[in-house]
């Protein structure tokens, strides 16, 4: 007699091609035992609906795939379970072109000719490539790292979709190198990660490579979050969710700085969402009903309509933040790029009695479910947590508080002369800003001054003043400072500023005690 043979074999690899099923959940196994929620899960229904929207026609399944995030989960948690969880996953690739196994083999043969053949085969696959999802061997929580393309440029209301927090992912499939632009999403597994873990993991996926920091896994986030502060139940695993302080600890451990912003009035909330999203910083949002449990999601993009006129109090400029109509979020109860509409919600102020105001406006959120319905309860924004580079200290709020005065002064100076003046505030990478300066219509001396004689922080804060869609001038701020009026670097002429208006900008620069670059 001999012992059972264990640990000698390697897992098998197969790459198979199938038509994309109308019901994507057919590819997945129903978990055994009583179903806790619904089957197919909301996440699988959402994934199927989203793939239909992208026009998915073919799937390619890699039966063996090592996923870095999952293998860390195994190391931290699943390796010590009684059930023998494998340390590998499967991966499904999605394509908008219809092809079968024979066509797939033909493409491989063509690529074997090398040179032009390989380039042509890669181009064929890349043309219809929609992205991938990792299938974890976790019953009920199979959706691992998932990167999918974003949907089209406009909504049915003709609002502009701005997916400002996506990046390029390189994907290797059977020797081909493919690319997909998106932001990684994954479902919480309720073992290693909860909603805050996966939301933060997605947010870090965008900023970490820009800052040349290593990508952290959900397991590393959970460990870092609970290093100094445990959950209410006294243990870090299984994860029952994180509080905001723990999220901040995990951000610090990832080599970044946490920026926590409390909800304010709807315009200011939108300004924060606009400012950080347009600067490429994905945020973790704390959202939920007025009171009770709070959920975490990650912002990926914005829905932007037209800018609203100034109302209360009447100002002489428009605020770009009023154009924000909604968001795209990674919500692990749903999936990637879930659609959110923002609205002004009136809520009672606890304990307030007339003549004091008894109500105030808050930012309401309607999150759309796969069947097109919205959350039963209307939710609200409670807080925004942004992982930012450590040296970035000047907040969007402080940039705006300075920008308000500049926009108002410009609006007063140009009233009746130009279309309404508009204020927008964001961060720009200094290298990108200098590169874009060639299109600013600067004089030779001005261009030289900006590109060769002006010091800029790695990220500059930009107060952007425009009129009728044309940029007039930018006020640049040093973001390594934390007080806006001490951080002025330069006032830079933009392509939309008429020559006759240059003296106005020069004078404002003088009033702000900074240099004018024209």
């Amino acid at each position, binding site marked *: 007699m001999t012992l059972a043979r264990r640990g000698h074999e390697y897992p098998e690899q197969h790459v198979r091609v199938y038509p994309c099923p109308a019901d994507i959940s057919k590819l997945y196994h129903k978990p055994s035992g009583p179903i806790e929620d619904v089957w197919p899960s909301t996440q699988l229904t959402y994934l199927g609906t989203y793939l239909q929207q992208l026009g998915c026609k073919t799937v390619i399944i890699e039966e063996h795939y090592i996923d870095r995030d999952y293998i860390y989960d195994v190391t931290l948690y699943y390796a010590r379970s009684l059930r023998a969880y494998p340390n590998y996953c499967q991966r499904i690739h999605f394509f908008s072109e219809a092809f079968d196994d024979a066509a797939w083999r033909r493409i491989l043969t063509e690529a074997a000719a090398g040179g032009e053949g390989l380039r042509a085969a890669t181009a064929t696959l890349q043309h219809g490539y929609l992205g991938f999802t990792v299938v974890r061997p976790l019953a009920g929580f199979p959706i691992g790292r998932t990167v999918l393309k974003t949907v089209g440029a406009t909504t049915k209301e003709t609002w502009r979709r701005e997916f400002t927090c996506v990046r390029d992912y390189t994907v290797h499939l059977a020797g081909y190198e493919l690319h997909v632009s998106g932001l990684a999403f994954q479902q919480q597994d309720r073992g290693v990660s909860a909603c805050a873990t996966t939301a933060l993991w997605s947010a870090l996926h965008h900023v970490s490579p820009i800052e040349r920091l290593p990508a952290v896994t959900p397991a590393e986030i959970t460990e870092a979050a609970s290093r100094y502060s445990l959950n209410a139940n006294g243990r870090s695993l299984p994860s029952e*969710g*994180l509080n905001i302080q723990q999220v901040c600890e995990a951000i610090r451990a990832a080599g970044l700085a946490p920026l926590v912003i*409390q909800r304010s009035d709807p315009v200011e909330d939108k300004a924060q969402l606009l400012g950080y999203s347009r600067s490429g910083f994905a945020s973790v949002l704390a959202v939920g009903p007025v009171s009770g449990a709070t959920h975490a999601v990650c912002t990926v993009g914005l829905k932007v309509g037209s800018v609203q006129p100034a109302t209360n109090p009447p100002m002489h400029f428009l605020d770009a933040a009023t154009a924000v109509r909604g968001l795209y979020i990674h919500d692990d109860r749903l999936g990637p790029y879930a659609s959110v509409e923002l609205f002004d919600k009136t809520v009672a102020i606890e304990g307030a009695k007339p003549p004091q105001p008894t109500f105030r406006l808050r930012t309401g959120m309607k999150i759309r479910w796969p069947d097109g319905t919205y959350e039963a309860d209307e939710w609200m924004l409670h807080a925004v947590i942004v992982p930012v580079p450590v040296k970035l200290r000047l907040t969007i709020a402080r940039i705006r508080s300075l920008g308000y005065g500049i926009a108002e002064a410009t609006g007063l100076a140009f009233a009746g002369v130009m279309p309404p003046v508009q204020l927008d505030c964001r961060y720009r990478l200094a290298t990108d800003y200098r590169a874009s300066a060639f299109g600013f219509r600067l004089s030779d001396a001005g261009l030289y001054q900006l590109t060769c004689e002006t010091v800029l922080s790695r990220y500059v804060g930009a107060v952007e003043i425009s009129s009728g869609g044309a940029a007039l001038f930018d006020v640049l701020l040093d973001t390594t400072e934390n007080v806006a009026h001490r951080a002025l670097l330069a006032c830079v002429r933009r392509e939309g500023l008429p020559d006759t208006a240059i003296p106005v900008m020069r004078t404002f620069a003088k009033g702000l005690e900074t240099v004018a670059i024209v």
Partner: protein
Amino acid sequence: MTGGSKDARAAKTKEDVLTVLDEGQLLALLEQARQNVKEIAKRALEGEVITGDLLNMRLRSFR
């Protein structure tokens, strides 16, 4: 100051208007603008006030 400059604007062409305000008037305009936005500039910073309750807010999935 601003009333006078508004009258001047009405009678001038676009190019003229941009040169009609002298440096002193523009600096005064900048100061006036700062006063106009005082309240909203203060409101912009409201979100930076962080409480202990907020930091202890637990984030967990439900539905």
